[in-house]
């Protein structure tokens, strides 16, 4: 599904990603771990198309289609979703209104009519129940005055509503207490199927206790220095990241 080859990206001429290779197949969950500043969030942003970063070399394809040629909204229309590490506030726009607009814009781009209001409401009810959200919350301004945990849960709610092909969860576990973490993980697990894929970016192993990855990759200084199965996450938890630095 997603294929990244020799990806280099920089910000203000400072190299951040220095040759990433990664392949994610449909139905798989990949975890990307690594110490602070290793380039994890940059990788997520570059896949989503954030223009703050310049891609200097390499390719990203989704189902053999070049993503780098597409604008961020076009990538979203192809099924790319990113859960933000720091979700953005939009005053005066309710979560309901925002997600309704997003769904209908995606449908429009894919040649579909607007989703009828009745179905939209039904879907909102189902997905908010899945994530054990208070629906009053959905009529508040998007992310404005939300706690860190509420923001993250709202990101996963949007993911559930948009049903993306590829979901990238950037540090979704930060700011979540253990109960919320379980609810969010449960939501992600229920949403996974053989046709979609998830990339989890995290610093700690604790989320991976609840969403079990098929592969774990360790990113250090802009490169994937080690890949393995879920046991690699435990090893990192035990030994820290210092030994990884020697691999680089």
């Amino acid at each position, binding site marked *: 599904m997603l294929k990244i080859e020799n990806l280099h990206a920089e910000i203000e001429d400072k190299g951040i990603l220095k040759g990433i290779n990664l392949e994610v197949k449909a139905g798989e969950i990949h975890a990307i771990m690594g110490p602070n500043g290793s380039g994890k969030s940059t990788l997520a942003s570059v896949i989503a198309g954030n223009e703050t970063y310049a891609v200097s070399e390499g390719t990203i394809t989704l189902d053999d289609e070049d993503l780098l040629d597409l604008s961020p909204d076009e990538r979203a229309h192809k099924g*790319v979703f990113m859960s933000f590490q720091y979700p*953005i506030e*939009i005053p005066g726009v309710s979560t309901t209104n925002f997600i309704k607009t*997003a769904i209908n814009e995606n449908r429009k781009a894919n040649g579909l009519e607007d989703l009828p209001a009745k179905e939209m409401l039904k879907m909102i009810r189902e997905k908010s129940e899945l994530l054990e959200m208070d629906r009053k919350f959905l009529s508040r301004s998007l992310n404005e005055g939300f706690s860190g945990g509420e923001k993250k849960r709202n990101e996963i709610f949007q993911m559930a509503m948009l049903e993306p092909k590829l979901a990238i969860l950037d540090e979704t576990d930060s700011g979540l207490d253990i109960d919320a973490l379980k609810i969010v993980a449960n939501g992600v697990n229920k949403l996974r199927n053989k046709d979609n894929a998830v990339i989890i970016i995290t610093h700690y192993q604790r989320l991976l206790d609840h969403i079990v990855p098929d592969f774990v990759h360790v990113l250090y200084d802009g490169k994937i220095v080690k890949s393995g199965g879920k046991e690699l996450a435990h090893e990192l938890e035990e030994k820290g990241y210092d030994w990884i630095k020697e691999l680089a």
Partner: protein
Amino acid sequence: MKYTEDDLKKELETQEYEYGFYTDIESDTFPKGLNEDVVRAISKKKNEPKWMTDWRLEAFRIWQKMAAPDWANVNYKKPDFQEIAYYSAPKKVDPNKTLDDVDSELLEMYKKLGISINEQKKMNNIAMDIVVDSVSVATTFKDALAKKGILFMPISEAIQEHPELVKKYIGTIVPQTDNFYAALNSAVFTDGSFCYIPKGVKCPMELSTYFRINEGGTGQFERTLLIADEGSYVSYLEGCTAPARDENQLHAAVVELIALDGAEIKYSTVQNWFPGDKNGKGGVFNFVTKRGICYKNSKISWTQVETGSAITWKYPSCILKGDNSVGEFYSIAVTNNYQQADTGTKMIHLGKNTKSTIISKGISAGKSQNSYRGLVQIGARAENARNFSQCDSLLMGNECGAHTFPYIECKNKTAQIEHEATTSKIGEDQLFYCNQRGIDTEKAIALIVNGFSKEVLNKLPMEFAVEAQKLLEISLEGSVG
């Protein structure tokens, strides 16, 4: 050489009518220029009584001694007042018309505007008075309103039919001497709306006026006079459009509202005059004086959505004369390209326990300049007066400007005055967030702007809120990229 009415008539007969891209209706236009004879001719054309003619002439003499105000934060080439035609009427209008007699080309024009009279009548339960250039074309629902004793008609008709009401109130809130443009309007106003709601009557429908400048090189000077008698209620809406032209057109209106004891007036405006093109050529100069007076326990609420005009100079105000009266001002002003807006309000607290609220949302894009200017004045006898003001500015790009000029004059120690202001910019991060969800940048801006303006949009009557929302989107089209 003296210019007589006969000369004028002759000139009108030989005048060539323009046929252009604007609606192809013959129109009856005075030659350009302004002097006492033109003022007299306008009055004569309207078959006005002597007191009205005299009142106009008095205004004209006052105007001649005045200078155009230059304190506003706008820059433009002053119009040449001798280069403007002061009267333009679609020619086929007959004073005895009914709706069925309305020129089919005119009706076609309304259809283009999306305001077909019949449709409006049926669908929206809105009574409409439509002013094209200088003359009211048709007032719908007149009979239905008459049953409740409500008078809603062109002001020219009111001068004929209800001279006592017009004479009693005209110029009492905005006197001829008020300012340069108000004086000009008083001298040359050609039409506008008149409305009277009798004691205790709640007007059962929205009253609406639609203004349009069609003819080139004309000015439009409407005069609106709205009187809500004791304990009555009315919601009034005005909409404005003008076709694209590359010269600047002048629009100088005066609106006077009178809310007698316990009355409530809700006055909403959606202003979409031609703003000029991308390079700042053309557009309407909109110099408007709007003011209302509140007697005991009454309320006036101004809501405006200003997206058009090259220059906007407009301060809908409230004189809170009666005890416990309430004034409100809710405004969204959008400027794009080279538009300039200097708009706000004046809340004059004279009575005890008077209350005012000001919510102003300014949105600037392109190379435009957007200013809020507001005065909160608390008189010495206004015990326990309260004001809350909130002025928010939203900027798009790096070449536009937002300015806030709040003035406060307080002569009573018991007053409570609050002022809040914020300035924000549509951030790259907000746009990226929306983009990532599949919402393109244009749509994302519309969403963010609507969110920003929501408090004010919510104050508009339902059907116009939707229209206003669309207008915001259109006005900001192409503002990024």
